[in-house]
């Protein structure tokens, strides 16, 4: 296993300790429950926006904690939703009179643990609501009863809600906003390699030198289909057609366009992909008013990328442009 890791059992806590040590002023850390939170939260007149999912998606979600983004994140083990107790403690720690909004990516494990935690929190009199994100067009076959996955589109829900919450939106308004973003955002990903969870010590799947996985999620699980590796433009064309064809996006639409790296793909390749996506948008009469190229929601060190498109109206455009501050320093 080619990783910087001590005892794999301590991988997640050591990562979180690192994050806490790197942000002593901005972030609080509750080791017992893997909670990373804004040290100035909760405050009573603002809805707390929280998320918890498996680890291994960094910078999501722990590095998305900060003013204008999440108030807290509570990761589980690598690719495993956090235990119910962790979720409950996170809700408790972030409780506010204005309420707590839990953003859940649509995975059975996440949903079950959060559902239980929300029930318990409600029983304690905490005003908590949850919203389930499912933007992955790779999973749409109705025979798969858990429905679509939540992948990088999650980022836009966080950003929009984080900004709106900062401006004083109520819990109900935020739920309406979640619904709007989620209904307008679509994603699909491709993997060129697998990834290695530290506790497993070897790659989750094997992929031939000339193969790729089409329609991967962000948990290292294989995709919907294995295919021969193709030139970058052909790959982008395929996922662009799937993503843009889904709502569908139309000529005249304004969009936010994201090329999300899955962890092991360098920026150079992401920009080669972006180039094609931007050309395709232009050809389709879709106007890109905001773009994101980088690693936002990853599968450890998996080589691969996903395309996310969000249709914007004035409200969403404004919310995406709102200031935010997170614990990632780029300069």
């Amino acid at each position: 296993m080619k990783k910087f890791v001590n005892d794999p059992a301590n991988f997640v806590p050591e990562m979180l300790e690192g994050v806490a040590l790197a942000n002593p002023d901005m972030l609080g850390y509750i080791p017992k429950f893997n909670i990373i939170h804004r040290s100035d939260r909760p405050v009573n007149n603002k809805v707390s926006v929280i998320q918890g999912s498996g680890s291994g998606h960094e910078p999501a979600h722990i590095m998305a904690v900060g003013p204008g983004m999440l108030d807290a994140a509570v990761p589980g083990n690598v690719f495993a939703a956090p235990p119910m107790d962790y979720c409950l403690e996170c809700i408790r720690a972030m409780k506010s009179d204005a309420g707590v909004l839990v953003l859940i990516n649509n995975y059975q494990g996440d949903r079950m643990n959060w559902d239980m935690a929300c029930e318990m929190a409600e029983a304690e009199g905490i005003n908590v609501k949850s919203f389930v994100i499912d933007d992955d067009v790779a999973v749409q076959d109705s025979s798969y009863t858990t429905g679509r996955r939540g992948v990088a589109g999650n980022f836009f829900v966080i950003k929009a809600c984080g900004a709106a919450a900062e401006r004083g939106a109520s819990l109900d308004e935020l739920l309406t906003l979640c619904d709007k973003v989620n209904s307008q955002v679509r994603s699909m990903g491709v993997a060129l390699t697998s990834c290695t969870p530290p506790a497993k010590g070897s790659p989750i799947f094997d992929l031939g030198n000339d193969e790729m996985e089409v329609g991967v999620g962000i948990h290292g699980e294989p995709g919907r289909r294995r295919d021969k590796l193709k030139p970058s433009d052909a790959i982008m064309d395929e996922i662009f057609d799937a993503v843009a064809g889904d709502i569908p996006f139309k000529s005249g639409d304004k969009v936010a366009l994201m090329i999300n790296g899955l962890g092991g793909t360098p920026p150079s390749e992401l920009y080669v992909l972006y180039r094609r996506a931007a050309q395709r948008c232009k050809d389709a009469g879709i106007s890109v008013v905001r773009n994101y190229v980088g690693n936002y929601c990853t599968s450890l060190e998996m080589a691969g990328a996903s395309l996310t498109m969000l249709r914007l109206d004035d409200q969403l455009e404004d919310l995406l442009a709102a200031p935010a501050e997170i614990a990632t320093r780029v300069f």
Partner: protein
Amino acid sequence: MSEITLSDVERTLKSMAATALRNEKYFSDLDAAAGDADFGVSLASGFRVIDNDWDELDKSSIGALLLKASMIITSNTGGCSGPIWGTAFMRAGALSREKGSLSLEEIDSMLAAAIEGIQKRGGAELGDKTLLDALAPVKDVVSSYVGKDGVPPGEILKEATAAANEAIEKTRDWVARRGRQSFTGDRSIGTPDPGIVAVATMLNDLCEEFGVGAE
């Protein structure tokens, strides 16, 4: 059938924990085939605490022990497995609260309650290729002996284990419709469900623990 005692339940729980710990890597590897390779780690994380804290666990009754196990699993296990296994133990524990021993009929009801709880919790149905497809045939074996006298518990355990083992092969070519493996669609065909394998492995180890089988 003679009654199942608190001590039998203790041995059962300890044996299940040992199975989960011993197979941590194996179960994760199974989950890698179509899922996200965390099942073994998740399952072990709850059972490890049961194993470590064994001496301090409340053993005043069968129900007390199972409810404590449920709490430990729910608190320490992430992914799908925490809610699923935690709910199963909770439902079984709720039906055996003050009990020091269990009849076969009571065990049958506890299994039924566990299965129903899992279905409520995760929305899975039989045929979705989850551990329910191992638990249901196990319960069927138990049900078939309810009211029949003189059958040694070991025989029933043996037959239940065989049913779980069969479930592995029977479901292998099904499509997973729950948990992470469901996203890979048809690609789950041909690989056994890790939850089903875990149930079967635990039963096989239980046979060993109680000196049953090995014909």
